């Protein structure tokens, strides 16, 4: 169980972590500044199990991975309607699952700081405050394999390259 942190459309990697902090790759340092300009209270109040709920094109913009490193360190789930293409790959490659709402889902009912649970059995995000459930897209097995390995490096080390797709 955690709280929902609700964001709109087109949240860029610069919104997630301002460019000036890209001089470090230390996860703890980056996590201190996550959403610093857009949601200054986020870094202080976020707790493990909280859920970042975003609209379309989450993580658009620059290809740098600091944004993913920072979010992963916060130990949050990330669920968006859609993602920036590079950001989505960066999430998978760094062991953070980029979950997605089903295409037609209306997410406007979820309000910031609602009590939410990511239900892995029903594959839904359950909003306990509003007593509603939003369905999520299933995760393709290939992405799950990389994420479960912990990182793309670990996946490649274990499998000695990419496993043949079945």
């Amino acid at each position, binding site marked *: 169980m955690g709280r929902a942190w609700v964001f709109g459309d087109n949240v860029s990697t610069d919104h997630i972590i301002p460019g000036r902090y890209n001089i470090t790759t230390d996860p703890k340092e980056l996590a201190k500044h996550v959403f610093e300009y857009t949601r200054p209270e986020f870094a202080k109040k976020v707790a493990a199990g909280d859920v970042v709920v975003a609209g379309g094109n989450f993580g658009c913009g620059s290809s*740098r991975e600091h944004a993913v490193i920072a979010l992963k360190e916060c130990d949050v789930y990330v669920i968006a309607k859609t993602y920036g293409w590079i950001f989505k790959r960066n999430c998978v490659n760094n062991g953070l699952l980029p979950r997605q709402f089903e295409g037609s889902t209306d997410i406007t009912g979820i309000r910031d700081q609602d009590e939410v649970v990511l239900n892995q059995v029903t594959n839904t995000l359950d909003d306990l405050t509003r007593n509603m459930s939003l369905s999520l897209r299933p995760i393709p097995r290939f992405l799950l394999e990389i994420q479960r390995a912990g990182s793309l490096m670990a996946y*490649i080390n274990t499998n000695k390259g*990419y496993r043949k797709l079945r």
Partner: protein
Amino acid sequence: MSTVIEKLIERRGARQGDFAIVPVDKIMSHDQTTPLAVEAFEKFEAKSLKRDRLVIVFDHIVPPSSIEAADNQRLVRDFCRKHGITLFQGEGICHTLMIEKGLVKAGDIVVGGDSHTPVYGVVGALALGMGSTDIAACWQTGETWLEVPESILIRVVGEPPTGVFPKDIALAYVHKLGISGSQDAVIEFTGETLERLDPYERMPVGIMATECGAVTEIFWNKERNLIPDRDAEYCDTLEIDSSRLEPLIACPHKPDNVKTVREVEGRDVDQVFIGSCTNGTIHDLRVAASILNGRRVDRYVRTIIIPATASVYRQALQEGLVETFLRSGAIFCLPAGCGPCIGRHMGVLGSGDVCLSTTNRNYQGRMGSPKAEVYLASPATAAATAIDGKIVDPRRYL
């Protein structure tokens, strides 16, 4: 029933449903994205660097303007020296160099640690922009994974009237699609207007696909059989009649905030920049020189011109364009590179500055102060604006 992108993926790789593993012919990265890739590469246990496929270019902050930039370049330079990797320093912008040096060709699959890597689609390559982890994984395996994307088709027809350049065509489709209009999709380009353009003239059209959130873009290429099946399915189709266009401009602070130049004429500017991977080729410098020839830029405007590569510079020198620029009072800068586009050096914008730039992005803070404003337009509009000191329709000078 395959699009061009599906055909290329199926021709080269192993596809299973929505996913494919494809070989990678070239792996490009630059001074900003390579340090993290080097760090990631160290995590591989049994290293197998695909040395011959790596191309590393110092173009973003070259030569380094700070100790931090110099330290990063030192780390990468040592890595290149140790492994005998191709390194270009100050010879030009990575994307223009890749095409100019023939490092990418039709049918190739190329990845790059830069969000504008998709531009290699102008020569018929499948090119993907990636983060540093992906780049390191390509160095190690020579392969990459991808979700097979859908395609949007953009067909450009008609003869562009005087004053309308490839950048205007690009802004026309960015305006129609919007900054997330091509999300999770590839843009495929075709049409008589684009077929007539050489790869360098196509660059602004290809580059701006990134600004619509496109996975990548590719131009159809009949000679290399890069054309779709007759019954290929496109998720969206856009037709642009270039004969009906007029000079366009993207206003602050989003590339899809597009208006006609006429609508914003008269806006005072503090800086004009002509250059970048988007508009720094010899074609662009010729257009700018044709307008600046025999004229002076406004005394109070900082006009900066930077060629995309060293060979563009050499050509401009031979054609007398550099002489024209210097006589006009513009600042002609070397080395060839990204220049002020990324807001780190060679023309950083101050608070309240207004800049007309031939680059690709105008998000807040992109070229310096978050309180600066950036307009994006063609080199013709930029050169005309430099003369008047305010935004002006270039047709007045053509």
